[in-house]
């Protein structure tokens, strides 16, 4: 987790919502409705899980931690496979691109925890009565929290492959398959790994949240840290929560040391730069692998496999250059393709309308919009508060290199830590002092995501050129003027990057933060997150869909109308160097 690796979350290309966003939104809703429709046909109790219930004995925690970790690993593998195929298709085919990219953008703003409702129902019905279905649902939930930004990053990399390397690959007769493994994938690697790391950080939150979930009458409790905590809440067992937090800390440290640091250090060679950088990331684990013959031998089969794959002579006929003759046929295919998209969108819209209009009335929509605005207000206030607190602290730390070096990994670590594990601690306090849940549950939304603001600001302040600081010093710029004229513009692009991630995470967290319980005490803050959570628990699918759609629209608009213009401004005017 090197400082210089901080970069923007994957963002779409356009600023204003366009017709493709609407199409994508409707397609997503339609797909969700269809999955639910399939899911509603049968609901089966999961007797298999009831026979071996989760136990609060800390002895079981290592095993639970292992199962949780396995789910994470499986999900990241799925995400990578998805990324390679989806991003490549989007980048190489103009026709696929117009649908796939807006779709990705909408999927990015779908609240994953609301999504869980459908996927659990869907996978349970795919494998009725089997734990496997529930496991898949959980893995799928993590996958949906990880895949999108990785895919965006890969897509943008493929689109930006340097022209001269592209020419070289062509002129040395690389087939498209060889080119993919030799040029596209390596070039995309640094961005992909950085995004995978961010995804993993986010993923812990969702794995914990999705292990113990109640959908209508179906209660699924998969053995893992998340369900351990859920049981702890039910039994009002504060020490158990403490054990779980400790275990999670250890797991994340191990994950970082054993998996990500080696990968980042290894991937340093893919960084596209023509000069050797002064400091490259290091990893004791990678050094161990590189220096130890036995461990090295372990990696050989993978290397051989990669070599075979990338050298396969899959000769897809070279794409011919568009000649004048083929323009008319190409136009015809375009027309058919757009007609097909139009028809699917129409069908999806019709199904969604039918599904929702059966039980919902316009007053429901108005109510949900109201809840949405309440949650929106929470997000805005919380981001503002986090900004006021963490920007000065981040700047203070970032300008002290020694300190920054020590604090930065901690901030990144805190961002990865699933904050929902710590929720019970706060809930206990709220219950004990009878605080108003409408106000005091809100901070939980930003508990886990505020660190993104902190570590991005630290990175920005660390990267601030010392000559500019010295210049400011020599002109005696101090106080308010120094902040406004010197440092705030300097860290602005970094701050926006962090704030985008933080606000996106807060929306998601609202689903678990606006409702909380401790034993049989239930606290609810009115808002969109609580609305979705309650509808999920009641198994009221139309209301869940309505809630998700509302959140989707609010998040998308919030991003397009606030964050992206700010980001574009920062990139254009305030990026240093």
């Amino acid at each position, binding site marked *: 987790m090197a400082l210089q690796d901080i970069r923007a979350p994957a963002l779409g290309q356009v600023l204003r919502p366009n017709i493709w966003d609407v199409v994508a939104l409707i397609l997503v809703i339609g797909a969700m409705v269809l999955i639910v429709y399939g899911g509603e046909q049968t609901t089966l109790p999961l007797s298999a899980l009831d026979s071996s219930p989760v136990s609060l004995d800390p002895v079981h925690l290592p095993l639970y931690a292992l199962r949780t970790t396995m789910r994470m690993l499986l999900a990241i593998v799925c995400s990578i496979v998805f990324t390679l195929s989806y991003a490549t298709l989007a980048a190489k085919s103009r026709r696929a691109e117009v649908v796939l990219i807006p779709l990705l953008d909408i999927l990015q703003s779908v609240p994953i925890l609301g999504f869980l409702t459908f996927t659990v129902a869907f996978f349970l019905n795919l494998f009725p009565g089997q734990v496997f279905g529930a496991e898949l649902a959980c893995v799928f939930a993590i996958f949906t929290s990880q895949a999108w930004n990785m895919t965006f990053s890969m897509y943008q990399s493929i689109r930006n492959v340097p022209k001269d390397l592209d020419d070289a690959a*062509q002129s040395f007769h690389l087939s498209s398959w060889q080119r993919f493994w030799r040029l596209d994938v*390596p070039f995309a690697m640094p961005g992909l790994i950085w995004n995978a790391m961010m995804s993993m950080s986010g993923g812990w939150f969702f794995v914990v949240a999705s292990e113990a979930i109640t959908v209508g009458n179906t209660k699924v409790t998969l053995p893992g840290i998340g369900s351990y905590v859920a049981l702890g809440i039910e039994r009002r067992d504060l020490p158990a929560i403490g054990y779980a937090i400790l275990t999670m800390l250890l797991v994340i440290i191990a994950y970082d040391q054993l998996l990500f640091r080696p990968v980042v250090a290894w991937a340093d060679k893919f960084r596209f730069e023509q000069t050797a950088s002064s400091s490259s990331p290091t990893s004791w684990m990678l050094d161990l692998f590189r220096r130890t013959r036995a461990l090295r031998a372990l990696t050989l089969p993978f290397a051989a496999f990669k070599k075979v794959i990338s050298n396969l002579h899959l000769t897809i006929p070279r794409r011919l250059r568009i000649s004048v003759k083929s323009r008319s046929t190409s136009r015809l295919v375009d027309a058919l393709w757009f007609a097909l998209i139009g028809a699917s969108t129409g069908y999806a819209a019709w199904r969604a309308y039918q599904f929702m209009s059966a039980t919902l009335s316009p007053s429901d929509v108005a109510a949900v919009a109201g809840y949405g605005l309440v949650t929106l207000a929470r997000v805005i206030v919380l981001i503002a508060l986090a900004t006021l607190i963490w920007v000065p602290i981040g700047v203070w730390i970032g300008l002290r290199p020694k300190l920054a070096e020590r604090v930065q990994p901690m901030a990144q670590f805190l961002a990865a830590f699933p904050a929902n594990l710590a929720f019970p601690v706060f809930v206990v306090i709220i219950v004990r002092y009878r605080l108003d849940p409408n106000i005091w549950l809100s901070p939980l939304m930003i508990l886990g995501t505020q660190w993104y603001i902190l570590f991005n600001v630290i990175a920005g302040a660390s990267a601030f050129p010392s000559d500019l600081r010295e210049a400011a010093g020599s002109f005696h710029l101090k106080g308010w003027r120094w902040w406004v004229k010197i440092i705030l513009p300097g860290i602005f692009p970094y701050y926006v990057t962090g704030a985008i991630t933080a606000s996106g995470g807060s929306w998601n967290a609202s689903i678990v933060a606006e409702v909380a319980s401790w034993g049989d005490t239930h606290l609810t803050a009115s808002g969109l997150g609580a609305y979705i959570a309650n509808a999920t628990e009641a198994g009221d699918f139309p209301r869940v869909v309505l809630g998700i759609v509302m959140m989707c629209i609010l998040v998308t608009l919030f991003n397009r109308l606030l964050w992206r213009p700010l980001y574009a401004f920062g990139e254009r005017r305030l990026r240093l160097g």
Partner: protein
Amino acid sequence: MLDISKDTNLLDIRSVCRSFPKGSGEELLVLEKVDLTIHSGEIVGLLGRSGSGKSTLLRIIAGLIAPSSGDAKCRGETIAGPPNGVSMVFQSFALFPWLTVLQNVELGLEALGVERTERRTRALAAIDLIGLDGFESAYPKELSGGMRQRVGFARALVVHPDLLLMDEPFSALDVLTAETLRTDLIDLWIEGRLPIKSILMVTHNIEEAVLMCDRILVFSSNPGRVAAEIKIDLTHPRNRLDPTFRQLVDSIYARMTQRTEARTPAIEGIQGTGVGMILHHVSSNVLSGLIETLAGPPYNGHADLPILAGHLQLEADDIFHLGESLQLLRFAQLSEGDLMLTDAGKHFANLETDARKKLFAEHLINYVPVIGLIRRVLDERPSHTAPTARFRNELEDYMSEDAADETLKTIVSWARYAELFAYDEQSELFSLENPH
């Protein structure tokens, strides 16, 4: 070596044209009816200014783009996609940063499906030949520019191509490194140790072309055409200080400046006319500096271009841009490979900053039509502002989007220096208001 029969033609280019879409949607012709034949055993140079279409021609031969019309054949077969037996060396080296030197060199062989042990033998032989021994396991970013381009050569040679294409292979290198690499390559060529039959190189460096090539095709610009073909009969190794060598260089300089006059109205003495003129971005600081240099000793208002280029350590292409900008502004005149200050130019050299700005502004209004136009529009409008897009559209009727961008950039920087009008980058507006 020069004894050739028809069937050994490596390359046959017949009336090849190529156009690209302009900003306005119409087509811009960059290459017009070019003929070129390459035989076995020769080094051919394509020499021209930037924008003369010489690189476009090279890309057509490399099979990276298709000609709009005409016939391009390599060893008798029409070129559709990169032809077999042709490989390329890139200006930017185009090495894969995640592959070692050895892996980079082996890449072309892997793509051809050459078996593993043979691949290794041939790659090591190429590395050895080009003087990269000991660097096999290094990554490109650990190497200096010259070493990187050696990798580029090894990678191109290892596939044993008949024709080696080189796209300004030395222009990204410093002077000394480039010279070493050139002589190393020529040595290998005359010793017959290169596994190739012919070389086609693109360059804008006149001396480099005379130093290396058996035949030089001089390209003229807008649209790109072959303006002249020059045979160089000097024996290798060639000496830059040899009077015949100097004479050849001088005559090509003269020919290339002549060309710039030939395609403009003789009385006006400027390149292209009207609003659609492409303005190359040359800083006003550089222009003032050049005028001062020309006015002072040893030139005293009159300089020989090759000597001036050598003194200022500039490429021929750069000195042409500078000369043409001065000529456009009537501060100097180009002819027969010489650059002479006009009276206005001599006057300029003796002025103080504010007076210089005033004179510069006067010349901009009078001699750069598009700047005159912008100023008129701004004066006429009550708001005294005008969006850039209005002028960009007009420019794109005549030139590509990139050229329009560069022209606008030049307009903005010259107008700012002359304090003619202001430009706001964020709103993309020209205005008469300068901050006070």
